[in-house]
């Protein structure tokens, strides 16, 4: 292949005018100003920056067009939008909606950064008025009042000497050379990308840290993570905010309860009461969200004749959701909530009381013991479950599994990460099974409760009964898988692994 000089990209420290550019060129060259292009761009992504993190960009151009671009600015999919378009399912059916369903199945995409992008084209000509180098100047005028300027030089075949001469001249304005220049490099440094929220908490635990201090610190961090979701809940951006809020509160609650003996009774009682109250506030809203998110799924379960009734039910639930949402939003924005949170956090920030035997124990040893005993509990409960065991025992096992999952995830940093991840993976299979079993039962109860309501028409009742029957069948099917999944998780080899990873050797201890 022909050897051609490659294009070069630079970030400029200041704006540069065409006069200034002309002035730095050697006398034998002329600068011709071509036609410029300008557009308003909005960078969209969800709260977790999932689209950007997968190497793509979602751009809203001129208000009514969405474009999904890859890392080289190639258009992967686009569509024109009208009205509310915050979720993939609100976009017109097509390629873009499909791709965004994969990238952001639940979360809304919101404006992350907006700017006015101006591109100026220049041609540098020799004494024959032949173009020897082309240049592009990009001005990113951010709505956050921060402006950025970039320049790209494009070599032309057969004009290598001229190209290197002109690149040398550019050194006069001391630009910062970049490996590449595309929309990603133009927009992302200007936006706050890179500050994307941590998905999992990192506690920086040390093995020998006393339990009370460590658990308090972990609780503080998780409450912080929960609080980061508050504004998203209040603004009702997507259902994931309230979900993540609840997950963090639930994890904190589980942690405090598993390590209750690390605190004085008084402190433990306070944590328990406050966390329970925090968690329960969002129960109803989350129930409605879960049901509404599964709208399509429910539709598919029923014959078309029952859809009108189902439609009525969903409208009913949407109204209830609106009420539940308002209550939660008012609660989170209110002073009572703030007081509750600050009381919790004040207490967690207080110096350890060291009032119990466990409070001073080394956290790694204690966490290991907790994991082992929790596994033993699951083992004992699991053995007792067979095909005829009442459902309640299966539900109880689900709760215990959730606790060990939290323990494994929260304390991963103290143990060999790879092995812990493998155990979590295995546990997840069982948990998913138990989770579905529970979901079907909760959904059935929810529907039965709904069926007892007033003013239900015959077609609404028919669809409720239809759904209940389908869900019952699904639940029975899920129940039939439980025993096998438990058997895998309580297998001897897994027991041995738990022992190896988490059991403390009384002689050596775990604190080296």
């Amino acid at each position, binding site marked *: *292949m*022909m050897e051609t000089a490659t294009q070069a990209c630079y970030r400029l420290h200041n704006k540069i005018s065409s006069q200034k550019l002309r002035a730095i060129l050697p006398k034998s060259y002329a600068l011709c100003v071509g036609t410029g292009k300008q557009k308003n761009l909005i960078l969209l992504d969800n709260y977790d920056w999932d689209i950007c993190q997968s190497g793509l960009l979602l751009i809203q151009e001129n208000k009514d067009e969405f474009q999904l671009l890859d890392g080289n600015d190639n258009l992967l999919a686009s569509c024109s939008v009208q009205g509310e378009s915050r979720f993939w399912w609100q976009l017109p059916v097509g390629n873009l909606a499909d791709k965004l369903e994969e990238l952001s199945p639940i979360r809304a995409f919101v404006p992350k950064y907006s700017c006015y992008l101006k591109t100026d084209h220049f*041609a540098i000509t020799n004494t*024959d*008025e*032949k*173009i020897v180098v082309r240049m592009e100047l990009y001005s990113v005028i951010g709505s956050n009042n921060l402006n950025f300027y970039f320049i790209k030089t494009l070599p*032309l*075949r*057969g*004009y290598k000497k001229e190209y290197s001469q002109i690149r040398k001249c550019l050194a006069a304005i001391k630009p910062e050379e970049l490996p590449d220049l595309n929309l990603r490099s133009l927009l992302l440094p200007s936006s706050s990308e890179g500050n994307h929220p941590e998905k999992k908490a990192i506690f920086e635990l040390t093995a020998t840290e006393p339990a009370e201090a460590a658990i308090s610190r972990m609780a503080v961090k998780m409450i912080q993570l929960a609080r980061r979701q508050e504004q998203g809940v209040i603004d009702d951006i997507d259902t994931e905010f309230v979900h993540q809020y609840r997950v963090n509160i639930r994890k904190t609650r589980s942690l405090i309860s598993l390590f209750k003996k690390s605190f004085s009774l008084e402190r433990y009682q306070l944590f328990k009461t406050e966390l329970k109250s925090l968690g329960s506030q969002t129960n109803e809203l989350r129930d409605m969200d879960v049901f509404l998110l599964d709208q399509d799924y429910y539709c598919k379960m029923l014959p078309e004749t029952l859809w009108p009734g189902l439609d009525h039910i969903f409208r009913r639930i949407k109204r209830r959701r609106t009420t539940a949402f308002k209550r939660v939003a008012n609660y989170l924005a209110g002073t009572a909530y703030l007081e509750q949170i600050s009381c919790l956090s004040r207490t967690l920030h207080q110096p350890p009381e060291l009032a119990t035997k466990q409070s001073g124990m080394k956290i790694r040893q204690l966490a290991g013991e907790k994991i082992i005993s929790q596994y033993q509990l699951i083992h004992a409960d699991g053995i007792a479950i067979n095909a005829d065991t009442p459902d309640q025992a299966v539900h109880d096992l689900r709760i215990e599994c959730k606790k060990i999952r939290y323990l494994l995830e929260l304390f991963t940093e103290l143990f060999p990460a790879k092995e812990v991840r493998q155990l979590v993976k295995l546990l997840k299979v069982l948990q998913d099974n138990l989770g579905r079993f529970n979901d079907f039962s909760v959904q059935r109860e929810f529907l039965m409760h709904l069926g007892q309501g007033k003013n239900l028409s015959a077609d609404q009742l028919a669809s409720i009964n239809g759904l209940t029957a389908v869900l019952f069948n699904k639940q029975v099917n899920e129940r039939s898988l439980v025993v096998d999944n438990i058997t895998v998780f309580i297998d001897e080899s897994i027991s041995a692994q738990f022992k190896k990873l988490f059991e403390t050797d009384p002689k050596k201890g775990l604190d080296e």
Partner: protein
Amino acid sequence: MKILACYSMKGGVGKTASAVNIAYWAAKSGYRTLLLDLDPQGASSFYFRVKPAPKKDWGGRFFKVYGEILKQVKASDFANLDIIPAHLSFRNFDIFLGQINKRKNRMLQVLKGLKKEYDLIILDCPPTISQLAENIFAAANMVLVPVIPTTLSERTFDQLTSFFKNEDYSRRKLIPFFTMVDGRKQLHQQTAISMRKRYKRFLRNAIPYSSDVEKMGKYRAPIDIFARGKQANKAYLALWTEIERVLKDS
């Protein structure tokens, strides 16, 4: 990749103007195009403001080293269009070709090496019938022959056709078209009618006589750049569209 030669034994019939404008429209239609200026006078290089590298006698090496050609490629001011400018040492081609051997497919072998980079190669040929011309005839998928509708031009085209016949080149490659047509001249009209009768492969579109074609030297650019709305420009676009159709069919 297709190779298209603009060729005539006769000088001053509009070979270079045609090569330049056809190359321009081909590139504009999305074909990655290379214009190879084989005429040592370098008129098409001049129209595109491209100068050859100051290298001695690379013409002598033309058929030896493929890499040598690539070093000569220069981008034009237009997207998709590159030029290999003419070089005075091209005058030695014939002597050189005569020296090495009598093979006529050397040029085709060299140009084949460019098929990954270009969709279309346009050869602007010098007005000779020689070893170089025979290499061009062997390499080209289409030999475009500009013909002024006059008796002398008709005679030249007849000679070329006979040459193709005698030397066993496919006459289907020969695609003539009229240039510098002056509709007011009766001779032009009569010659055109009689030639179209005898040669069915004549392109339907013709290039009228126009001062805009001559102005290419002043503006050093394809006609579209300085006389967009003019008849000559429209004629070249129509001619290119017709050539494109023939290329696709061939």
